[in-house]
């Protein structure tokens, strides 16, 4: 069987599979974004968000445990929060961490791998996701510059004193704002999911097997697969678990990278970040995950998890 072949019916089937699953979460995210826009002022954000940058980034990395969001729904929410004064570095940390450091994903990973090994792998996945997201947040804060990563219309948006007079009811304003957010992010989702479906429906999983024997090809192969398959973070562990030939280090790279970086997310990020920033953030995330995956061949056996 060839590694890649196109079938229109399979393509549309997977495309709509992704859209049926993701549209509700993007709609929910847009709704939350509307609530943030209408009900949350910059002053409120400033009052409740930690003033200490370090603390803000670390807290954002764990926020998914209390406010779990999937990778599609989180994009409009973070975009709006950053416009409301949440530091960009903290926003990016939450954006990257919440689809992994998230009770639903921890439970689904545990179930997928089963038993005690499941809990260990779920814990490792959450810890690695947190570390990668926090490092990217810190790099954005210290080296890249908070405002330079945002698209100019978001960076320049000044919502100061935005407890403004709205003409209509709260519900109408929230929903109307959500409509505009959904239109833009939803269109990005459709485009990204289209590319994702093209790869997902055309690619044969059996083509991955030859990559399993070498640490470098195994880790980079599984990373490439995570970017290409565009799976929901609640389901990806079940797919990862079915790659029996691959060692845990490569599966871990798949599980950490997928929710942070895939084709559909890259397109959706373009509604928030500048292209250069997307390249920089993606590059850093990929590099850190590669490091975790390749060194995992050493530290996972040291932790007694080499045989998993």
């Amino acid at each position: 069987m060839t590694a890649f072949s196109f079938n229109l019916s399979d393509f549309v089937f997977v495309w709509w599979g992704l859209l049926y699953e993701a549209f509700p979460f993007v709609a929910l995210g847009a709704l939350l974004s509307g609530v943030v826009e209408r009900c949350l002022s910059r002053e409120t954000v400033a009052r409740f968000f930690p003033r200490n940058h370090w603390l803000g980034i670390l807290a954002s990395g764990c926020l998914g445990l209390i406010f779990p969001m999937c990778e599609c729904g989180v994009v409009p929410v973070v975009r709006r929060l950053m416009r409301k004064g949440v530091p960009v570095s903290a926003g990016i940390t939450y954006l990257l961490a919440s689809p992994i450091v998230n009770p639903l994903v921890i439970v689904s990973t545990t179930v997928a791998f089963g038993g005690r090994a499941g809990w260990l792998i779920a814990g490792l996945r959450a810890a690695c996701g947190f570390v990668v997201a926090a490092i990217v947040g810190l790099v954005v804060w210290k080296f890249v510059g908070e405002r330079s990563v945002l698209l100019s219309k978001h960076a320049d948006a000044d919502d100061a004193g935005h407890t403004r007079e709205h003409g209509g009811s709260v519900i109408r304003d929230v929903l109307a704002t959500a409509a505009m957010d959904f239109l833009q992010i939803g269109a990005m989702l459709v485009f990204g999911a289209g590319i994702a479906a093209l790869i997902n429906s055309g690619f044969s999983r059996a083509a991955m097997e030859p990559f399993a024997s070498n640490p470098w090809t195994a880790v980079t192969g599984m990373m490439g697969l995570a970017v290409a398959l565009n799976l929901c973070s609640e389901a990806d562990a079940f797919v990862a678990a079915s790659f029996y030939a691959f060692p845990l280090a490569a599966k871990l790279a798949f599980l950490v990278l997928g929710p942070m970086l895939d084709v559909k997310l890259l397109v959706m990020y373009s509604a928030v970040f500048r292209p250069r920033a997307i390249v920089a953030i993606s590059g850093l995330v990929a590099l850190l995950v590669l490091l975790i995956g390749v060194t995992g061949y050493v530290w996972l056996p040291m932790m007694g998890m080499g045989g998993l």
Partner: protein
Amino acid sequence: MWEVVALTVLALFLACAAWTGRVRFFVASLYVWLPPTAAVLLFAMAVARALQLRGNRGESCCDEAHAPAPKAQLFYALIILIPIVAAVSVDPRQFSPDGMRKRRAASIVRDAALDRAMNWALGMRTAGARPAEAVLPPEPTLYEIINAVEAGHKENLTGRFVTVIGQCSLRDGASDRFELYRMVVTCCVADATAVSLDVVRPDGAKIEPGQWVRVGGVIKFDDSANPQQPVIHATIVTMIPTPHNPYL
């Protein structure tokens, strides 16, 4: 105004898909409530946006300052409508046989003797010591049969008569047997993984690729290429309609 049109059409499409039961072919049964929920949300958004546009005629609201330009709105609206056109024209309900083959799960290669030795060494009861009834339910799924084999119950399964349902895929160059498969879906069809077993077909049984069938037969481990792989020797193959929940 384009955003109102796009959101309304999308909401109607999602509501229709939920109403006609089409959604269950695309997402796991646990999540079939998601698209109708999205339809309600999107319709409410479209109505609110239409009311806001009517109320703000001639005024410039700060929301409008953040909103995309009209041309961009039209562009986004058109992108959102493209998959609807594709779904209406193609109307897929299942993977093609080739699409299924791309999604096959690799089977675990186990050494039963080594498993027994490990179980003995660890002081565990060997898997094979379980009574036959406990290994499989009366009407097992393909997944349960494969799991039972992988758990080391080969001896208990040998010679057992089972009735399973699944879809057919023809094997190249093997006219006496076909592949019976089911898709395991956790969230949506993007994560679908195919699990399958070989079936030796009874004389005269006609098989169509992708057709749903109920197979009754005896489990044997007589595949010369892979003796660990169960094969169902079918005595009866009946065509059935697509089950309400097509995925495991």
